[in-house]
């Protein structure tokens, strides 16, 4: 059997620039490369010499789809370095802002990027011709998430209101209560989204994933928690680099993460859900039950349903936070006036999974070294494993069908290639 190559030069309906190449020899998958050709932007290099206060705004520019995740990981890492704690209403407001990003980002993926695959359309605009109610629901839901970010953050892409220690300005109770009707409506739309997603047709596939996510004591994880996996891993964020390492492949401008001494792993909705479903709110849990989701979902195609369940959760969590909100006395916790050289790490749950930030600061508050590991760089190796299994199962398909299958398998994990390229490690190979 001659050599056969499946190649996609430019992946569509993913954020950023990626390509795919699978080489098959003698009916065996010889090589799988999820190529990231998006050019590097060197964030970790030019963060050096910047003030610790600038990191949230600068790192937000790594990704226009999940800027809040970058702002949250940067703030928490700086606060850990400086020994600051942010509690009470400020902590709740951060969670509320994150709810907005989860709703926006998940609705974008479910309706505009992923659903067209299941229903056989190239995009949501063409999908809307035959299924206008579904696309309109998706756009309305997405808008609800964006609106929450606008009110709390000033704007939905690269919000301006986040700072180390809290916010520049905190909302009044009345401003948040005004969001209630819209979020009530969004909650209903999210529940309809779970029904819509669970009614799609899924290929029957199960993968053996090592799921990795945060887990915290009392809540579904966003800004806090320990790193856990379904294979017994349990470490605090400060020890992330003892458990995981990054390797650079020749075919990619992104570094790939693996478990030290192990292989690929998966972060994101499937992992969070498998490790934290007992922490979901009542509405999300009953939506999951109604959709017939088991406690662990190993079928990557069903991630669209899990994402929808997380949108239900983000809506009900936002409502819960708004109902209990009492404005804090001050919009932010004051950072220490002087400090010694220090370092700090933090992980938060971006919509696509864990986002790790680590910084070393000089005693005058300037960043000396930075390390950022984005969710997609953690998932890249695992996506390649999914592709390998998929192609092995589907060797009898013609090239065009197989190519289509591969693109769908990649979109299951909502990769954000812009992020993955910019996870710029300062792990120097010193010679």
């Amino acid at each position, binding site marked *: 059997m001659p050599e056969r190559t499946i190649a996609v030069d*430019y*992946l*569509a*309906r993913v*954020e*950023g*620039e990626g390509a795919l190449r699978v080489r098959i020899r003698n009916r065996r998958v010889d090589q799988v490369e999820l190529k990231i050709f*998006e*050019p*590097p*932007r*060197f964030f*970790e*290099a*030019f963060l050096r010499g*910047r*003030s610790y206060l*600038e990191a949230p*705004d*600068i790192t937000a*520019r*790594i*990704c*226009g*789809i999940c*800027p809040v995740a970058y702002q949250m990981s940067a703030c928490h890492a700086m606060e850990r370095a400086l020994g600051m704690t942010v509690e009470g209403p400020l902590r709740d407001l951060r969670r509320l802002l994150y709810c907005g990003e989860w709703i926006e980002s998940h609705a974008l993926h479910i309706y505009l*990027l992923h659903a067209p695959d299941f229903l056989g359309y*190239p*995009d*949501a*605009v*063409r999908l*809307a011709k035959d299924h206008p109610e579904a*696309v309109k629901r998706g*756009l*309305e839901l*997405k*808008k609800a998430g*964006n609106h929450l970010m606008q009110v709390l953050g*000033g*704007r*939905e*892409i*690269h919000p*301006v*209101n986040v700072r180390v220690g809290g*916010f*520049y*300005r905190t909302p009044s109770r009345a401003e948040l209560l005004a969001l209630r009707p819209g979020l009530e409506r969004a909650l209903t739309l999210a529940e309809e989204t779970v029904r819509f997603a669970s009614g799609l047709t899924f290929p029957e596939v199960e993968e053996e994933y090592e799921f990795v996510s945060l887990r915290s004591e009392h809540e579904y994880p966003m800004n806090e928690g320990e790193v856990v996996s379904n294979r017994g891993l349990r470490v605090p964020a400060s020890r992330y680099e003892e458990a995981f390492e990054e390797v*650079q492949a*020749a075919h990619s*401008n992104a*570094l790939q993460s693996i478990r030290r001494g192990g292989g690929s792993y998966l972060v994101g909705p499937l992992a969070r859900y498998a490790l934290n479903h007992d922490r979901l709110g009542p509405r999300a849990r009953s939506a999951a039950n109604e959709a017939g989701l088991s406690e662990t979902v190993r079928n990557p195609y069903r991630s669209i349903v899990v994402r929808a369940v997380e949108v239900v959760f983000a809506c009900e969590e936002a409502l819960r936070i708004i109902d209990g909100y009492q404005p804090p006395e001050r*919009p932010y916790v004051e950072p220490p006036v002087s400090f010694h050289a220090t370092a700090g790490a933090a992980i938060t749950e971006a919509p696509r999974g864990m986002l790790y930030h680590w910084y070393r600061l000089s005693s005058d508050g300037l960043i000396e070294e930075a390390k950022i590991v984005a969710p997609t760089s953690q998932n890249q190796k695992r996506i390649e494993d999914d592709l390998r299994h998929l192609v092995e199962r589907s060797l009898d398909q013609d090239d065009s069908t197989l190519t289509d299958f591969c693109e769908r398998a990649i979109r299951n994990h909502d990769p954000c290639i*812009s992020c993955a390229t910019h996870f*710029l*490690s*300062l792990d*120097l*190979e010193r010679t």
Partner: protein
Amino acid sequence: MSIPRRPRLAVWKFASCDGCQLSVLDLEDDLLAIAGRIEIANFREASSAVVEGPYDLSLVEGSVTTVEDVRRIKEVRAESRVLVTIGACATAGGVQALRNFADVEEFTRAVYAHPEYIRTLATSTPIADHVSVDFELRGCPISKAQLLELVSAYLGGRVPNLPNESVCLECKRRGNVCVVVARGTPCLGPVTQTGCGAICPAYQRGCYGCFGPQGSPNIPSMLRHLDYLGMPHPEVQRVFRTFNAFAPAFRAASEAVGEKGGK
């Protein structure tokens, strides 16, 4: 006789965060209406169907950072009747233009263990350095309202109404209390182009210049005022050297401060 057809829209990506092209999809209320009036012919982030060029309207996001980009932007220009750059990366080189003030080889070594795999240019440059540009939308990110105005004006065959006055004017109209006067907070509002909605002052922080320099910025006066407010020179240099660092007026400002030395 030609059959009337909808104009064709293409959205292109160069080095960027994808936020500005996301703004197209963020036009939630108007997205389907726009798609009824204009054919979304080439928009990889949103569709796997690509209609061949030429295109009537091209929106270009991102800056030029590779040899391949230099070639590709010329192709894009050749097949676009109207080319509009969207966002600070495309209009000024973006935050990645900070490399223009540094040694890129050292940057690459700092970030990647195997720098020989990475191919990149020493500079990040705006699209207009390489091809002619018909219009630009400023901002990091662009404003959805300005994007909608641009597309509506295009469809209506008129010039878009995109003011190049300073953030201060918009800030006054919004009724914000001036953060400089009331709180002594350094603010780039006087030299920054409007369009964002003066959101930073509305959220009680100073403008950080994400829409780049306004039409006729008085940089020397701005620098004197930041000095008067007690902003240390390294901080002044950094605030101009962020998302629009390579825009000529902001670049001149950061270089002027650099010459003065630290304080």
